[in-house]
């Protein structure tokens, strides 16, 4: 891990990482009770890209993400109780229970609604960024995407469009090496995604070692390029590692489609542990206690929130 002397930064990043991890651990713990009746795609192990990038964003900046969206939602400042209530299918959920874990949204903090069809959101992000550009708005759009989404045709189409119109947008590819149980090498001859897209004329960078500070530095460079009025799109690939099964709360190392050994280097850099070790014990304690309390309240809130009324079934089909 890179050295940094900025302890406020360390605390901020740790708080965000720890909070995401603990929320998801709670989700995983609760899952077998069947209180959360919808597929959850946990980010445990891959919290860092969202945290690193969002740490540098302005509140007005807009993020688009995927069904694996808890980390991004929380890192961007999304409402935690509303998220948990959404997982519970309750009316106080961020989508009134209609969306569930795969369809989180918090327009207050410019976290756009996420969808469950891989790669569909990529052109939305480009279109949104193009619209902001046209309207001369200063905020920027960041589009998070998985490695699997880069194989969908719409990804290439979107990159071509972004390059053509010099749309100011930052793509952040969270390359965890897998789409469900398929390793990237079974899906593409070129596992290095930055290399695969090199022909589009979009500047790019790749962070390979799981170091959150390096991710953050790369994101800073990327954002500076995207914020430059003469800038255009930028593509940032971050290697990372999903620790749980693709969907659901369990570990799946026993399945045999991957092994811990493959990701030893990334695991060694797990920023939750690393930052924890680096903080002053008291400040760490303070952060963790506050987070635990917040989480407890959030789950309490979700427990107590009612389910939507039957007539809500028919509401909001049209605006």
């Amino acid at each position: 891990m890179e050295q940094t002397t900025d302890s406020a930064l360390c605390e901020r990043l740790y708080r965000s990482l720890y909070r995401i991890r603990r929320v998801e651990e709670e989700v995983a713990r609760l899952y077998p009770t069947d209180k959360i009746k919808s597929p959850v795609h946990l980010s445990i192990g891959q919290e860092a890209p969202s945290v690193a990038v969002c740490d540098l964003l302005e509140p007005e900046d807009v993020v688009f993400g995927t069904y694996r969206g808890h980390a991004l939602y929380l890192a961007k400042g999304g409402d935690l109780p509303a998220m948990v209530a959404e997982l519970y299918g309750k009316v106080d959920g961020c989508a009134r229970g209609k969306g569930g874990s795969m369809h989180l949204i918090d327009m207050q903090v410019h976290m756009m609604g996420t969808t469950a069809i891989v790669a569909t959101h990529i052109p939305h992000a480009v279109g949104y960024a193009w619209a902001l550009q046209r309207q001369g708005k200063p905020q920027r759009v960041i589009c998070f995407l998985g490695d699997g989404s880069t194989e969908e045709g719409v990804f290439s189409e979107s990159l071509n469009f972004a390059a053509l119109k010099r749309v100011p947008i930052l793509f952040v590819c969270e390359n965890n090496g897998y789409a469900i149980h398929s390793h990237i090498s079974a899906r593409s001859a070129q596992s290095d995604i930055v290399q695969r897209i090199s022909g589009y004329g979009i500047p790019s960078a790749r962070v390979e070692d799981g170091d959150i500070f390096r991710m953050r530095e790369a994101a800073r460079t990327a954002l500076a390029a995207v914020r430059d009025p003469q800038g255009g799109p930028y593509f940032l690939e971050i290697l990372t590692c999903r620790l749980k099964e693709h969907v659901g709360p369990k570990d799946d190392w026993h399945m045999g489609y991957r092994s811990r050994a493959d990701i030893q280097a990334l695991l060694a850099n797990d920023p939750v542990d690393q930052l924890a070790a680096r903080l002053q014990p008291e400040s760490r304690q303070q952060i963790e206690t506050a987070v635990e309390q917040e989480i407890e309240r959030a789950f309490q809130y979700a427990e107590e929130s009612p389910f939507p009324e039957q007539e809500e079934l028919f509401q909001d089909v049209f605006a």
Partner: protein
Amino acid sequence: MSLHDGGERTLTFAGAIQEAMAQEMERDPTVFVLGQGVDDPIGFYGTTLGLAERFGSDRCFDTPLSEDAVTGMAIGAALAGLRPINTHQRMDFLLLCMNQLVNIAAKSCYMFAGAMPVPLVVRGVVGRSWGQGPQHSQAFHSYFMHVPGIKVFAPSLPYDAKGCMVAAIRDNNPVLIMEHRMLFNVQGPVPEHLYETPFGQARVLRSGDDITLVAIGHMVMEASRAARQLAEEVGIAAEVIDPVSLAPLDMATICRSVQKTGRLLVVDNSWTNCGATAEIVAQVSEQWQGSRPVQVKRLGFAPTPCPTTRPLEVDFYPHAASISKAAFGMVRGDGQEWNPERVSAKEVEAFKGPF
């Protein structure tokens, strides 16, 4: 709303669309047009001519051949507060962006409990005639009628070409407008001022007591010809209804007519199987619940892909005489048959391609 509230001014169907878009773009700076060739010298069958010059190249612009991403990018722009109009030279190409339209545009408002509505207009042109062949002749309105969350217009009159476009642009939801290639050059009264064709309101174009003809898109012209032929040659009075809005669908007007005539013939510019004709017939039948016999029948594409060669293409489509013949059979009973003469369809015959 009267078709003549604007006096006697006439425009072509294409001209009416162009005027609607231009006037709405003038009124509302968030409206913009994107699609393949919309800023080229042809101007999308004339419907986008002059828009790029007048409103600038960021409000009317060409796109790469990327139907999927372009639809997605229009959705993204809609989420950011703009009102995109995305064109497709053929509805057949819409099959490349079904995911964006059905999985996203139609669901975004609901899935996020109202927080992400998608005000998007999609224009799809149905090709026909002169060897367009199997992949340039399809009409997929029923695909969008099937799915909640997206509205569908299929104007047949220049008046509604304008009115539907205005209503679609102003609506806060995704709206598909099906435009038939054979209609683009048809002239008709079109008021100069801005007006909206309402969603969910059918238009009774001709009244009659013997049979109800519901026709969709270009088939409205053929059904109107059939109604004239039926009246003039065999004294059958057909009521002709143009639903205009397919989703929502004005079943009340259709049922009122069928209540009177007891006979319903639905004619579509697509296949009948699981199509708009199936839905209309099914709804009428459900509403009747056996209380009184009603005769129903459907006409549409032959149950084959569209052949390219003219002699087969001619048999592929319903036309005035095949509509007349079917209507006659329903009104006069199975015993009698009538083989009416083929009625010329000027808009079809005038078309000499190539596109």
